């Protein structure tokens, strides 16, 4: 996997926002993303899961320098996007595209589908008009929309699933290496969601794309990802190969998330989902000292308040930031045996 080196590497990325109270007085600093480091390897899908407010979307935008992170660096194919600006940043960003959650909100309602998909080519001054038209038809076909039928339509004449296909086509026009998908199927119905997920997979194999796939839905992320990162309150708490992370989660937060998923099989061994953690996530303006999960953690001890846990490797390529991780000895029996990832 590591043969080609990472495609994108985030190093100690920090993003903060100042909250202002009455009269513009500084009311506090939201620590949205705090010292997050990871890499997206060439050809892989890295999933990022976390609850609302965990900073996963802020992180995605910080990677694209929109807005720039407060500190840290974002290396894309070795060059630091944080240090680039103007034309050189635009040139680098060609290779990293984004698909958003709201398919209607992210398309200009007044434009025709063909214009929407052509726009990135125009912005980057690629090709002649005829060449651009050809490219538009090509990518529309790739995402399963007939260019003759759908090219002249406007977003309101499309269903949610079709809108999302247009958004994907737009992301593809510049032939990117990495697509950042922020909750790309969350607003779609289950059957349409399956169609779009399969499209993502198909594009990945056909075009050799890498994805950074962000979602709050753990099962969804498992479906598409090679590796998964779990975020909580601006911090990465666990990152590892998908199979290993879901079979043997080390972080108590990951364990709790997995226990909360309702299974569509009432006779399943997992049974009814459990609310294993109680209470509300702490405020990102004033996060707890030490480990940020400790106030909701069933395993928390004194050390967790005093000392912030660092990410460390516990098994093959599987890292956790926890002083008292759930290990094989302390875990409830797991039916499957442990094997390293394929």
């Amino acid at each position, binding site marked *: 996997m590591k043969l080609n080196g990472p495609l994108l590497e985030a190093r100690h990325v920090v993003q903060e926002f100042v909250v202002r109270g009455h009269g513009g007085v500084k009311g506090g600093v939201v620590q949205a993303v705090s010292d997050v480091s990871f890499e997206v390897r060439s050809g892989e899908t890295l999933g990022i899961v976390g*609850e*609302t407010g965990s900073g996963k979307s802020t992180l995605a935008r910080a990677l694209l320098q929109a807005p720039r992170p407060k500190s840290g660096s974002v290396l894309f194919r070795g060059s630091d996007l944080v240090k680039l600006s103007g034309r050189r940043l635009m040139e680098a960003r060609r290779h990293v595209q984004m698909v958003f959650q709201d398919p209607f909100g992210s398309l200009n309602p007044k434009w025709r589908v063909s214009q929407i998909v052509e726009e990135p080519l125009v912005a980057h001054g690629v090709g002649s008009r005829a060449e651009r038209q050809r490219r538009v038809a090509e990518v529309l076909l790739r995402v399963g929309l007939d260019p003759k039928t759908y090219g002249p339509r406007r977003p309101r004449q499309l*269903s949610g*699933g079709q809108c999302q296909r247009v958004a994907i086509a737009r992301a593809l026009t510049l032939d990117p290496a990495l697509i950042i998908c922020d909750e790309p199927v969350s607003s779609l*119905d*289950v*059957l*349409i*969601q*399956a*169609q779009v*997920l*399969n499209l993502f*997979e198909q594009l990945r194999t056909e075009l050799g794309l890498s994805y950074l796939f962000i979602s*709050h*839905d*753990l*099962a*969804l992320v*498992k*479906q*598409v*990802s*090679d590796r998964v990162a779990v975020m909580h309150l601006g911090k990465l708490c666990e990152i590892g190969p*998908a*199979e290993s992370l*879901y079979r043997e989660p080390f972080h108590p937060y990951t364990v*709790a*998330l*997995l*226990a*909360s*998923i*309702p*299974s*569509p*099989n*009432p*006779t399943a061994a997992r*049974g*009814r*989902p*459990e*609310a*294993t*953690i*109680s*209470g*509300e*996530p702490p405020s990102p303006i004033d996060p707890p000292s030490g480990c940020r999960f400790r106030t909701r953690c069933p395993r928390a001890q004194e050390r967790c308040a005093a000392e912030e846990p660092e990410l460390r490797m516990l098994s093959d390529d599987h890292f956790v930031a926890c002083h008292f991780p759930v290990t094989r000895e302390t875990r409830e029996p797991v039916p499957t045996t442990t094997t390293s990832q394929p």
Partner: protein
Amino acid sequence: MSTYGAPHSAAASVSGDGSRPSPSTTMPLLEVRDLWVRFRQGDRQVWAVNGLSYELFGGQTLAIIGESGSGKTVSSRALMGLLPETATVTGSARFDGEELLGLSDQEMRQHRGADLAMVFQDPTRSLNPTMRVGNQITEAIRTHLPLDRRAARERAIELLRLVRLPSPRQRFFEYPHQLSGGMRQRVMIAIALAADPKLLIADEATSSLDVTTQAQIMELLLDLQGQLGMALIMISHDLGLAASFADEVIVMYAGRAVERASTHQLFAHVRMPYTEALLEAIPRIERPSHSPLPVTPGRPPDLTTLPVGCPFEPRCSRARDTCRETSPPFEEQEPGHWWACWYPCDDGGSG
């Protein structure tokens, strides 16, 4: 526990193992018969609900499952009398023996909140942003119960405690924006419970919440249901949620019920190809990464021009000529298991 209003008699068994709770009376709490809802849209008719029938006993949890536009929300809003003027509602919905459809606004107000209450998906938009949450609850209480200000406030704080809102006395004076999404939904539930309703309709009540909060709210709803003996209708697009929490499930497609059974029976023997398609399309953590999901092509039908045959036929892998020509009836084809399909899935998987 609530102290006002007579405790409801139903003995609720809130077990998730799929066993149906024994109905407390022989008469269902809610009996919906041949419910039709259509909307005027210009010179066209949108056939939103087409002949829906079901009954619900006290203390029971029913899940109504379907995609957008399947009629699951419209059918329950019809019961609450919450549809716009462009809607035409026909059929019958008897609550505790009394007909709900066709009541005037005035008469409906007697039932709404007091007999049947509803919790909506988006707590942010359902709460008044300029009013303290406590006042919003006391308003609901005093609409239905003859309590003075002081008693109503005590009752409101008690309700906040009942829905397990931390530090209820302090939260009473806060505004909705000071609460998290999960806390707001707890406030919405407190308002819905203000007058001890016998039926609570939760319309995608947990869909906008995180999984951990969702599990907390569902546990809360089921606990309350057991304590108060309420019946619960949970409207959702999530079969997983239904499988985990409901006693009985109705699957809707294009305004019709297409399958209905006790949760246990339904998930043990899915009959309707649509239900099967829904189940298979859900990503599950048990599946290996990158495994292709079974795909159902197409989209739900246009509700202004419904086909003569089965509405799922164009997308169905089992469809034959019969399906195009005649719509299959929705009947109890096995004891306790209803479905509308000419060529249902059987265990052998033939056809």
